[in-house]
């Protein structure tokens, strides 16, 4: 079974929270120093059973800030 990890482009993330809503075990939106809150990654690599949720989070992110990277076995 292949695993994956996720990347968040912090220049693009504005903390909309769609990722946290789709995949709360992978993403958490937290306040930081910047104007908007930003998503943080909670687990890495992403377990197989969470992969579909990670992809959904990437697909629906309004800013296109999330990339799902497949890891070699």
């Amino acid at each position, binding site marked *: 079974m292949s695993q994956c990890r996720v990347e968040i482009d912090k220049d693009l993330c504005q903390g*909309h929270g769609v990722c946290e809503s789709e995949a709360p075990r992978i993403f958490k939106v937290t306040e930081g120093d910047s104007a908007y809150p930003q998503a943080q990654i909670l687990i890495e690599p992403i377990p197989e059973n969470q992969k579909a949720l990670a992809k959904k989070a990437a697909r629906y992110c309004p800013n296109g800030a999330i990339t799902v990277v497949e890891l070699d076995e």
Partner: protein
Amino acid sequence: MTSSAAFKPIPMVSGGRAGTGHFEEFVTTPIEFLHRAYAECGELAEFDMGGLHTVLMVGPDAHEAFFRAPDEQLNAAAAYQMMVPVFGEGVQYGAEPGIERQQLRIQYQGLKHDRMINYAGVVAREVEDFIQGWGDEGVLDFYQAFTDLTLKTSTHCLLGSEFRYRLTDEFADLYRDLEKGIDPSALLDPTQQKESFQKRDQARARLEELITEAVRSRREGGVEHNDMLQIYMDATYEDGSKLTDHEITGMVIWFMFAGHHTSSNTSAWTLLEIARHPQYLAELTAEVDRLHAQEGELSLKALREIPLLEGFIREALRLHPPLNAISRRVLKDFIYKEHLIEAGKNVMLCPHVSHQLPEYFPDPARFDPKRPQPENVFAAIPFGGGKRKCVGNAFALLQVKAIFCALLSRYQFELCAEPESYREVMPALILRPSDPCLLRYRRRGDGKPDERKMP
């Protein structure tokens, strides 16, 4: 200053006049001018805005460099001083960067995911009010109609029902006077003596009276509300101080401007393109009917799964982007590829130009609601990008989708004139359809819409 000797020169657009440069051409025909600049010079094109040298940057690479540059290098506030008289001193670009950052955080409260989930239903109910009394068919100016509708929907969602039902004709007129105070000449000097700027300042002052009165009566009433006005009233800066009434007024105007323009224009263009492309009508109405059959009240998640309607909206935003002079002031020398853009100049992006690059949008002039989105996230930039991207972009799409789900479930639309007579005009730095924007609406004859209850 960085030595310019080692860098490649940036081509200058032809036709600049002594003294004013290209300013008059930009003011008169901004879109045509920026297309000409790109056609002549390519990725980077320099022109002279009456002494303010500006470099137009075109294409995803250029957009990415622009959006990833820090504010200390490419500065938004210095480039958008024309908004200061509209929002007020001490608000957004009229505030220190640290204050602006805290104000953005406060504004963001209205766009949080847990608030957004309620907005689709609010929009649908406003559309229901909007179409009351339409009858079976008629003709409307849909640019005006959508301006009125989205002022109500944006206000209702973002500022709450109390504010929405205080939205008197006076308020709407003042808001329009503020809008008219933003024109291309404000780019150079927003404080010059001219009638539209005087009206803008009078409108800003009167709005402050009205909003201050609303705040005062709410404080006296002692009842807490779950809306943005309450958030502004309760918010504190990091030093513990509260927003002044002047700042609260500015925050309200800022929020309304941000939530309204793009939605009203995008709605008008989406409707025009739906009417211009009747070959998609059956598929589009089937998509909307299917959604209504599955869902009671439209949900945020359901509205994500309407690909053809979303394709119409995205193509409307691609071919008719509302904002076409996304600007920054260069505070520190900026190097892009082998070019140097010196401090003191402006850099500008124009979505209308970039959205027609055939490498990213094949056959770019063709309206194609089934066009795949480009993989490069910096190719389509109707809402800007990077840290300063319009944070209301998701709200805007949600709002326009909810409007069309409600409208298309009841009515069909036809143009009242030749398709090419609906032109693009840009009188106040915002691209919109020309007047009159007349379309005929006709109640759907297939019986389906009446089987369903509006939320």
